């Protein structure tokens, strides 16, 4: 009897275990990612917002030829790539057996089509104007011939999403096309839904992904005004955080990761205008500003002083010998005296009876940002009267764009991307990235170096050119990089995904741990 009873218990226990094991296997695994904005546009190349989070959502659906993981470039749709200097061509050998989300096979023709389509309908993240021709040189091989040697080309291939020809060949107005087939990619996730008002996205794993079925079944993005709340209450599994929250979150069992320095706070200087057009005056400004104090007082010490050559110290082409300006009001005073200014009894400089006054424009980075106020105090301590104006970001941006300012506290990221960023952020006057660019065309030497560095295909030689650019930029000082704030994210390790930041950023430099490769591996 007793034996019988044991048997029944054992049998019931076995059924119970099987039932729950089955239930556990059936429940889809999920990752939820929160940010405070929510909506970043539809996840296809022509309808996502031209911002990092928009690109990242799109990258879950669309693949590139080359991708990056935590160590650097890895094969994606292309298995290998090779430069042939004699013909100025890149040859990409493509992966076999890749499928689009609708089951169609991916071919070399899709890549050729994408390049042509994006030349006709520019995708704002890349520029394909250096391409002379693009053709399929085999069923799984594409040859792209350049008009001239162009070093940043590969970084564009790490960014350019490949479109299915069989869908896009009938789309004339990609910005307006709303069909669901415009979300057919080869990526690890299929796009299911975007709720514009709630700012939420749903993606589902693509079982036929070429690296195997993603380990997480559903990827969900949500809007949360305070993402840390969402993380702590279990509503989100990965969020960006303020660095002062790191210790508390670690204590609660979260994993905190830190990014390399890729975003800088920058003081824009209107070098079109007297006295800012004088290099000596710009140097005096730099000596008057205590950048370490900005970090300590304004950001609880979470940051590092920026390199005046703009490239991040974490960049492979960073020049450690870039000139810098240690805080020294005395040196600033000396320079101003050399420029004909004299200090009055009130401690302020003036020239020809006119008080030296500068207009400082500031737009806050967050609710606790006091950078504008601290810079005002520092400049006034050095004898420069400051008229500070705080403005909402887009309002300030449009003033900067129209050169309607003296000094402006601004900031931007992307400092770990291809070194072509120096051309764009120091010199370019023509591109729409102009708000973040110093738009400095006074130095002929810089102009020549900009052209030379993008044509130089030898890495070491290019490094020398980029080093020189940083030296000159730091001396000319068309804008003053202030500091790199610490950038951190936190995630719930129990969810089974180990997130990491990608060196140089995802795509052409998005500073985020949300790299699709970690959802696959």
């Amino acid at each position, binding site marked *: 009897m007793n034996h019988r009873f044991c048997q029944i218990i054992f049998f019931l226990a076995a059924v119970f275990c099987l039932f729950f094991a089955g239930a556990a296997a059936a429940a889809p695994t999920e990752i939820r990612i929160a940010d405070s904005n929510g909506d970043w546009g539809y996840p296809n190349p022509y309808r996502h917002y031209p911002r*990092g989070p928009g690109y990242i959502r799109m990258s879950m659906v669309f693949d590139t030829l080359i991708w990056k993981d935590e160590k650097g470039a890895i094969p994606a749709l292309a298995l290998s790539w090779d430069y042939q200097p004699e013909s100025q061509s890149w040859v990409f050998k493509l992966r076999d057996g890749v499928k689009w989300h609708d089951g169609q096979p991916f071919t070399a023709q899709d890549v050729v089509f994408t390049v042509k389509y994006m030349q006709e309908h520019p995708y704002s993240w890349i520029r394909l104007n250096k391409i002379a021709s693009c053709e399929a040189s085999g069923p799984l091989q594409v040859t792209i011939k350049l008009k001239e040697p162009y070093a940043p080309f590969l970084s564009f291939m790490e960014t350019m999403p490949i479109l299915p020809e069989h869908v896009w060949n009938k789309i004339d107005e990609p910005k307006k096309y709303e069909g669901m087939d415009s979300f057919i990619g080869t990526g690890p996730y299929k796009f299911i839904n975007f709720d514009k008002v709630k700012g939420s996205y749903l993606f589902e794993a693509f079982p036929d992904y070429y690296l195997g079925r993603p380990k997480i079944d559903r990827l969900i993005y949500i809007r949360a005004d305070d993402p840390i709340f969402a993380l702590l209450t279990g*509503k989100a599994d990965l969020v960006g955080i303020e660095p002062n929250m790191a210790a508390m979150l670690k204590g609660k069992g979260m994993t905190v990761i830190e990014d390399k320095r890729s975003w800088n706070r920058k003081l824009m200087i209107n070098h079109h205008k007297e006295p800012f057009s004088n290099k000596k005056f710009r140097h005096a400004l730099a000596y008057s500003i205590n950048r370490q104090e900005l970090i300590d007082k304004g950001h609880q010490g979470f940051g590092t002083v920026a390199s005046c050559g703009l490239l991040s110290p974490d960049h492979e082409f960073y020049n450690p010998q870039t000139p810098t300006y240690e805080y020294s009001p005395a040196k600033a005073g000396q320079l101003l005296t050399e420029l004909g200014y004299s200090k009055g009894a009130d401690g302020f400089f003036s020239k020809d009876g006119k008080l030296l006054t500068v207009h400082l424009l500031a737009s806050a980075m967050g609710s606790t940002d006091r950078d504008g106020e601290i810079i005002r105090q520092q400049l006034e301590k050095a004898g420069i009267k400051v008229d500070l104006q705080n403005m909402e970001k887009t309002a300030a941006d449009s003033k900067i764009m129209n050169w309607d300012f003296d000094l402006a506290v601004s900031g931007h990221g992307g400092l770990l991307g291809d070194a072509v960023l120096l051309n764009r952020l120091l010199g370019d006057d023509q591109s729409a990235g102009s708000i973040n660019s110093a738009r400095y065309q006074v130095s002929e030497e810089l102009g020549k170096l900009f052209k030379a560095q993008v044509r130089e295909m030898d890495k070491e030689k290019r490094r020398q050119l980029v080093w020189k650019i940083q030296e000159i930029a730091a001396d000319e000082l068309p804008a003053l990089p202030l500091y790199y704030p610490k950038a951190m994210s936190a995630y719930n390790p129990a969810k089974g995904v180990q997130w990491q930041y990608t060196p140089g950023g995802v795509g052409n430099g998005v500073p985020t741990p949300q790299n699709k490769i970690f959802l696959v591996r």
Partner: protein
Amino acid sequence: MQLRSSGRRRSRRTDLLLTCALSALLMIWMSHALPRLLPGDFVTAMYASSEDVILSAEQEAELRAYYSREAGFGQYLLRLAKLDWGYSYAFMAPVSELFFKALPWTLLLLLSANLIAAVIGFIAGVEAASRRNSGLERGLVSLSTIMEGIPEICTGVLLLAVFSLWLGWFPSSGAETAYAELSFSGWLLDVLHHLTLPLLSLVLAYLPGNFLLTRTSMVMVIRQPYIRTAQAKGLSAARIRYAHAARNCLLPLVTRFGMRLAFMVTGALVVERIHSYPGVGTLLFNAIRLRDLPVIQTVVLISSLMVLAAMTSLEFVYGWLDPRVKEGR
């Protein structure tokens, strides 16, 4: 005499409607002109400040031209006449679709908050006034006066900290669990669960004012001789309080309620923002941030027209609530 009076009333009504129509036209013009005064435009907000975007000057100019096609007021009027509210730059969707997706959440939040705050405030006000000078009344008045001074941004954050972060009872953001695939009753519970904190923030913001207003007018009313008459007739205390006295306190409360409803569309902007509630306030906030003109115009227009509609309908509700208003005309 009778004829003259009704004629006067009719002309008064025509005047009112005429004024309304003129105001509406002015509001339409303002909704077109005001958002345009915002410094910066969509291309600046969306493209030019992104370090990732690589556009040539021509491409940027093309974008600018693309987004400033519908510049004239005439075109705007024509479009509105066709009930076409335009196409959102940022969301790449018709504005009407966005607006009507956001509106139910705002209505749910604001209507329930206003109703709860009005009912509780009214009853508490009436009861407090009839217990004049008691400890309870004094306590409630002091508490409400303090509460009235605390803005909803403050209560909202405090509620979040206590009930969401510390106790973990309620979610901190959103109107429902995204893509939860629940049954209908499960979904309803989920919505209520998400609604609680933003609703509470608003009720706490509206309640003290309603309470103080009702109490004050009730205190005035119960001094009136007709209340003493009612008492002398031997009516029950509750009947006197509600049927005789409180009815006359409704007027100011209804005015307040109406005005709150008028600000329905944008009234919860701060609370919606704190709790990431997907209502019209959040929609407007994001639209302004991105200089999404068609969305800003629509929200501004509809919210201002709602103020107008509320004011006009209040005129009629007064007459029904309190015949003295109608007779006084």
